Structures are given as structure tokens and as C-alpha cells.
């Protein structure tokens, strides 16, 4: 297993390196640069040249790539010209907020999704199970801004229990942020819950049809044990993969929800960075997304393997 993890890690690093170069070149290939975006309409040839000179944009692409990469290795993500701050200072507090939001949403959604998925699979065909199925389908298909708006109406307007819009800055302490997390977190949790729950349910039902389950039942093993020891370990890999993908999404794809609730996370700043042509910031955020997706697939592969002795054996050989 260790050998496998090390190999997998090496590959992840390779993917990261190649992808970060591609991302850098991709941003480079776009028309315009940080200076044209910063100066906008007031841009004249002289001002542009001045700006580019001041910010080192005149150097060759390869030169700047090496510059940027060596900075990256030292933990320096560059400087945002538009915002006049180092990228690390912009990203870190928001990263913390996003992590808090994703953690709260995950804790609400994932355990519950697994439990409800199994529960509804075991009661397949009953009215309750069908109701759960329908509701989850609705949650899955409803755009997040609709879910968000409904929740906002319910808990911020009609029942003013929670703040509807975040009024604290991105640098506020976690305690100050916490009350503002609930509504966006619930919105995200509902979407994510539906995906994971349905995958758990489907996988459980397929696994339940397999001969070893019938054989276990025929041996007179208690149903509780059949579910926990025979079905679940074989059924979990599918929802675990969904969890990995959705967890990554919780950290990188939450722009809509952040806008609705004015939550100071990474999603908003990413969109802003793109419209500002804030190269350094775009690169940092893209790389962050890359890390998140690589890490989540790494973790889910490792867990899936740990559950399956065939994979374990293969890795050991």
C-alpha cells in the first residue's frame, strides 16, 4: 500500500507540474494583460509601456514562467497589480472561509447522505422511500440560486433566524464568520446530499443483488450484519468517488452561492480575478483548484483500495 501511495503521489506531482505550466501558458495566450485591464480606457501607449515596465511584463514568456515557478516553490504566489497586495494575502483569509464553509457543508451532507441512501435502498418501493427519491431529484436539478433564494426567504426573511447577507469582511475572525456560514452551507449541503445519497442508494441496490449477499442471508446471518459487513464495504466505493468529486466542488465551484449570500470565499474572488485580468491571482486560484481535485481523487482512490482486498493484494505484489 505504501509503495502504491508513493507512486500515486509522484504521479500527482507530475500532473501538477505539467498542468501548472499549461495554465500559465493558457493565461498568457489570452489577449490583453494585467496592465490593459488596470488602465482600461485611460490606457495610452506610454502609460501601458510604463506599467509593463514597472511590473516586469516586458520579459519573455519563458523568463516570467521560470520567475513565477521559482516563486511558487518558495511559497510566493506573486503580486496582484490590480489589488496592490500580494496574492497570498488576498487568498489566505478567503481560503480559510471557503474551507470553513466546505467543512460545515460536508459534515452536514455526507454522513447523512450515506445513512439516508442505505435507509431508502432498504425500503425501496415504499412510499417514504419514493418521497425521498423525488425530493432528492428535485434538489439535484434545482439551480443553486433557487435553493439559496428559497432558504434565504425562509430563514432570513420570514423567520429571521440567520443573517441573509454577510456583512463582515473576509478578514473577520471565524467566530464572526460562523453565523454567516449556515445558509450558504445548507444550500450547498442540500445539493451535495442529493448526489451522494442517490449514488449510495443505487450502489447499495446493485450490490444487494450479488450472489454473496444472497449466500450470507441464506446462512442465517442477521440482516444488520449482512448490511454492515457484506453489502456496505462492497457498495461504498461508488459514493466515495462521488464524495471526492463533490468535496472538490465545494471548495472550487461555489461561486453562485457565495454571490447570493455575499459570502467572502474563493469563488467570488476567482470570478473577479478573471474579469480584472489579474494574472497572478487567476494562476494562484487555478492551481488551488488543481490541488484540490488531484488530492480528492488521490484520497478516494486510496480509500477505495483499502476497502477491496483484491486491490490491496495487487498493490502489495
Amino acid at each position, binding site marked *: 500500500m505504501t509503495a502504491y501511495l508513493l507512486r500515486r503521489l509522484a504521479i500527482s506531482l507530475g500532473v501538477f507540474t505539467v498542468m501548472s505550466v499549461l495554465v500559465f501558458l493558457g493565461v498568457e495566450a489570452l489577449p490583453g494583460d494585467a496592465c490593459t485591464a488596470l488602465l482600461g480606457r485611460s490606457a495610452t501607449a506610454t502609460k501601458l509601456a510604463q506599467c509593463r515596465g514597472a511590473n516586469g511584463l516586458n520579459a519573455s514568456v519563458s523568463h516570467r514562467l521560470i520567475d513565477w515557478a521559482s516563486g511558487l516553490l518558495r511559497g510566493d504566489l506573486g503580486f496582484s497589480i490590480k489589488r496592490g497586495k500580494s496574492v497570498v494575502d488576498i487568498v489566505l483569509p478567503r481560503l480559510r472561509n471557503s474551507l470553513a464553509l466546505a467543512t460545515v457543508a460536508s459534515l452536514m451532507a455526507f454522513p447523512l447522505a450515506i445513512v439516508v441512501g442505505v435507509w431508502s435502498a432498504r425500503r425501496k418501493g415504499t412510499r417514504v422511500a419514493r418521497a425521498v427519491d423525488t425530493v432528492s431529484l428535485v434538489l439535484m436539478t434545482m439551480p443553486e440560486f433557487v435553493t439559496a433564494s428559497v432558504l434565504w426567504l425562509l430563514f432570513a426573511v420570514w423567520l429571521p433566524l440567520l443573517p441573509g447577507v454577510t456583512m463582515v469582511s473576509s478578514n473577520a475572525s471565524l467566530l464572526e464568520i460562523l453565523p454567516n456560514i449556515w445558509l450558504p452551507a445548507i444550500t450547498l449541503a442540500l445539493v451535495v446530499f442529493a448526489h451522494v445519497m442517490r449514488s449510495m442508494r443505487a450502489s447499495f441496490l446493485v450490490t444487494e443483488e450479488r450472489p454473496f449477499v444472497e*449466500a*450470507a442471508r441464506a446462512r442465517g446471518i442477521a440482516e444488520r450484519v449482512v448490511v454492515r459487513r457484506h453489502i456496505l464495504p*462492497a457498495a461504498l466505493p461508488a459514493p466515495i468517488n462521488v464524495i471526492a468529486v463533490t468535496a472538490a466542488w465545494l471548495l472550487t465551484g461555489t461561486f453562485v452561492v457565495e454571490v447570493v449570500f455575499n459570502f467572502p470565499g474563493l469563488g467570488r474572488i476567482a470570478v473577479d480575478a478573471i474579469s480584472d485580468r489579474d494574472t497572478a491571482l487567476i494562476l494562484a486560484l487555478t492551481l488551488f483548484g488543481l490541488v484540490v481535485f488531484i488530492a480528492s481523487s488521490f484520497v478516494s482512490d486510496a480509500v477505495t483500495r483499502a476497502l477491496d482486498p483484491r486491490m490491496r*493484494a495487487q498493490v502489495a505484489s
Partner: protein
Amino acid sequence: MTDIALQLDRFSVGVSPFDAAHLGAVEPQLILRDLSLVVPAGTRLGIVGESGSGKSTLLRAWIGAIGHGLFVSNGTALTAGHNLFSLADDDRRQLLGSTVAMVPQSVAMSLTPHLSVAQHFAEVLGQDTDRTSQLLDEVGLNGAQLRRRFAHELSGGQQQRVLIALGLARDPHIVLLDEPTSALDVGVVHDILTMIAEAQHRRGFTLVCVSHDLSVIDRVADRVVVMQRGEIVEDASREQMNRRPSHSYTAELLAAAPTLGIRHVGADRGTAIDRVVPAPIVRAEALSVVRSSSRHRLGRANAASATTAVDTLTLEVFSGEILGVIGESGSGKSTLLKTICGLLPPTGGTVQWADGFDLATPVERRPIDMLRRIQMVFQNPDDSLNPAHSVRRLIDPTARRSWSRFGGGLKAAHDETLRELLNTVGLAPEMLERRGAKLSGGEKQRVAIARALAMKPELLLLDEVTSALDVTVQAGVLATLLDIHRRLATTMVFVSHDIAVVASIADRIAVLRNGRLVEVDVTNEMLSRPRDPYTARLIELARRTTAD
């Protein structure tokens, strides 16, 4: 314990109306019809029938679990005096394993893949490791060695033994065996059946064994029930049934079972070797094929996962003959076929077509005419035929754009030709518009053969083409193959694990073991005077299971 172990009283099982409507049936369908049966304690009962006869459903009725979509429409099934369908789940579970034990078949992965052997036993015995070792010992396994293994680390035979030991764990009065030997090699079958008979003798439980294979039933049962389409058509002692079956279907089953040394009708037409000067159509010299496991990922070369499937094999296939190839699983017989048709690359030696064409050329780089000449039919038609396509589309070479480049005479493959083709494989012309999904197993395999024949091949590679079929269906397909051979003189290589089947149609037989050629000889020669002890043992085992 009551004196009657198992009982059926006008017992019927139907497909529940909802599912029946799905299947398009108008009337409620019965899987089991009005069965009555009394099985006294200590009986050794065999239930034989072909697929769809309801034998597995009957077996499951005695543990009260007939499966989704089925319901008891009438009558009762009693197990040691209990009706398991009317018991509460907990009470029913109490009886399972202790009063009645069901031993499922191993092929379908009946051991939980992520639990070790020891963990399986711990569930039914608690932490009694001595008892586990004792049980494994009783079924002929080395407990110390195997207890920590998982299902995928056991052979099919070992899995079946573990399943039997699990069934015996809590000393049941009644043991139900579901196809205990299907898909196992003949030697393993023999050993397992012997072990079962011994365990029954020692413990004296009531034994019910379900199989599609009369020879298996013959070995373990002294009373035989024959089922056909949900009904019991014969219930007799073993001797009685073998001597003079009272029902015509039983007689048909007995006749269809291939018996070693009995040639199929039409097979004795004088061997091909008498008719033509032996000219090899395929010649393999010192052929080796190393197969690496495709499961290693991340591009790491893994020497341990590579196996030599075919090992320095020298063999000729003569033009116009039927060459039978037999061997146990892992003997390399399928690999040999796949190499000839270009699906696997040889790693050593040479393999050539009659005109010197190098058959090491992978299939995608072979010239069109070469592709046409060699056609292969696979074991499982469910996997090799697209169920959504009509028979016409499946067998018509011009219906597929990728095939139209074969052009020439095949362009005229219109209805008349296709009907003729169906006729050749023994199917009615109306079948042309039928979807693959609506065909029976035997019909599917005939379509698969027709598809191969549509190309007018010179060499037909047949990989276990009758293994998935019932005996009566198998007999029909074998007769069809012989008929095709007589009419078209197509050279065939017929691969099977069953020496009796091979011997019933092949002119010559090649015996493979661990990728090596044990011997090759004219069929009758080999049967009467096997030169290698391994062949002798295969023949002896086959004799013992069929001619008892």
C-alpha cells in the same frame, strides 16, 4: 426432528403480476406448478433439469427465499415441519444454518469478496478457530494455510469447498446444494463429489443436490427428481431411472448427455484425414504466448503478473478436419485460439497460415481476405451478440459499414442468402427479424455460428461454444456443427473442457496442460490407447462420471 425432512404440498410459485406485466405475459406465469413431494430424513435427493426448469427456485423455497418478483401462489413448502414463508424473519433465520443449510454455487462469487475465509466462519461460529480448522479439514482444505485468504485468492474448487464447510458449520439436518460443481474442472468435480458423499455418509444429513448435469446427480443421489418447465416429470430411484426412465424427457436428457466413446450421429463419416491428403492449414511451431495481467496500472512492468499461457507448443491443424482441443482451465486452449485469430500476440515461436502468412500479425493489420478466412465463435453468446440488434443485422455482413469493404460476392447477401444461412445453422427463416434479446441460449449460439459462417471462413475457431448450453441444446448444436462440416468442409478447431463432448465430434484431439501439448492423436486412438498418464486420467474421470 421429524421423520420427514422436506415436503411440498401442491406448491406453486408465480411471477408477481407487476413483473409479469413487464415481461408482456398475459396470464400469470408459474415458475413452479403444483409440486407435491415428500423427502424423508436421510434421503439423498438429486434434482435435475435444464435452465428455466425451476430447480433453483424450488431449492430456495425450502429456505423461504425465492427471490424478488416471485411469490408463492399456492400450496406449502415445509422444511423440517416449518413453513419458512410464514415465519417471522428472526425465527426463520434461527433455522437457517442450523436446521437447513444452503450451499450456493461458487462460480458466481458466493463468498463475500472483502471478507477472509476466517471472517466468514467467525460470523457463523464465533471465534472458534479450532472448529474452523476442523471444518476446513473435513472438506479437504488446509485450514492453517487458507483461513486468511480472500475469495480471489482461492481457486474455484477451493471456494466451493469453503462454501460447503460454511454450510456444514452448524451441523444442519438438511443440506441443499445448488450446482455444486458447475464450471469446475473434471478432476475437481470428481474430488468434490466424493467429499460430499463422504460427509453425507458420516453426518447422515438429508441431502438435496440440484444440477443440470445428470452425471453429477448420479454420483451423490439415490433418488432423482427430473424437472421440466416447473413440473416434476419423473421421481425415481437412481437405478430405476438409469435403467428405464418412465418419462420421455428423462430419456431425452439421458441420451443427450455426451458419453465418452459414443460418436455423435454423423461424426463417423470416415475421418477427414482419410479423405484428404493431410495439408496443414495452420502450423504452430514452438509457439509461446505470455499474457501479462492487464490489471497492473501506472505503467509498471510486473513480472509476477505475467503467465506463460501457451508454452512452446507445436501443433498443426489439417485442412478439412475437426480438431478437438481439451484441457482444464488455465491450460491455454482459449489463448491458442485468440492467438490464431490475431487477438493476442505470440511472444515466441511461429504460427503460420497454409500459404505462409504470418499469423503473428495482429488482427487490425491483417489483410481483409485473411480476416475472412478465420472466424471465431465465443463461449457466451450473451456477451458476444448485441441484444438490441435483430438477427438480420447480427449475421448480415453488409449490414455493418465496417464490413461492407469485404465486398465481392458478399454484397449479394440479401434475404435469400441470409435465410439459407439460418437454415444451415438450424434456425427458422422467421428468426431473421427477431431481436438478440428474445432468443434462447441455444438460438443465440446458432446465430453466433451463422455470423461466423456468413464470411465463408476456411477455419472456424469454436471456443467452448456449448459450455453455457443445456445438454439437449448442446446435442443439437453439436449436430449442427457436424452438418456444417459435412456440407461446407470447413476446418474447425473445437475447444472444450469436456472430453466427452470433444470426442463426440472431433477427428483428432489435442490435449493441453499448463500451456503445453500433452499429446495429439486421432480420436479413437486416443480414447483406446492414451499415451500420456494425464490423458488417461482425464478419460478415466470422464468414464467414471458418465458410465457409472
